[in-house]
């Protein structure tokens, strides 16, 4: 019964969106982290989504989603002159992770909306399957 495939497809979306929410949580948790060199400071992480093509489903023209990879932001950490800071280098500079909290929050809302959409699709499908099973009774 192909209604069950909706669960599989929506399930891939839930996994992908929860990976996205995890990276956002990690980015927000590390906002304001300080280091002594630009290489050791935390950089924002973002998942890259791609269509999960599998032969059985491709024949019906449908496909789920998967996380292709998680990339690090190329934005350089902010360099600040704070000579008294314990993490400061010889020249008195510290490097602060450049994470835009507002951007991350907007990204989080988008991710949770997409998550909700898939949950709703699964709920509706579940109701329809239950009704189909009780057909003729």
């Amino acid at each position, binding site marked *: 019964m192909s*209604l069950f495939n909706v669960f599989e497809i929506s399930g891939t*979306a839930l996994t992908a969106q929860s990976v996205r929410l995890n990276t956002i949580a990690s980015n927000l948790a590390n906002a304001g982290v300080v280091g002594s060199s630009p290489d050791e400071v935390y950089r924002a992480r973002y998942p890259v989504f791609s269509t999960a093509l599998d032969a059985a489903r491709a024949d019906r023209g449908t496909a789920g989603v998967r996380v292709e990879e998680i990339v690090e932001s190329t934005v350089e950490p902010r360099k600040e002159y704070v000579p008294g800071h314990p993490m400061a280098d010889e020249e008195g500079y510290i490097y602060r992770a450049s994470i835009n909290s507002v951007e991350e929050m907007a990204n989080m809302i988008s991710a949770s909306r997409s998550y909700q959409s898939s949950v709703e699709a699964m709920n509706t499908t579940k109701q329809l399957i239950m009704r189909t099973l009780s*057909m003729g009774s």
Partner: protein
Amino acid sequence: MNMIDKAFGVAPQALVLRAQRFELISANIANADTPGYKARDIDFADALSRAREGAAPARVTHPAHIATSDLRQAVLYRTPAQATLDGNTVETEQEHAAFMDNAIRYQASLNFLNGRIKSILGALRGE
């Protein structure tokens, strides 16, 4: 086709197609954030008339053959109202509307089938 099959009419095929359309729309919703994904849907009337004619898919007799299913021929790409920079053509609101539309029509077909089953049972029992 026996009498009972005739009594059900087109509803069983419609249910199967509706279920397949659910799969397509849920794939669109799942890929709402995938760069380059193109939203798909079926032309329902076309797909249903194909299913009713019972056009058999071409037989696959060689590994190099590409299987053709009825549904695959009816799958079309959506034209987006607003283009996005990442090439994704899913419009979530439209997909939600299509999903609900499909759900209601699925239930309509189910109700129709239920009614027919009750009539046939009534006739068999001689009530």
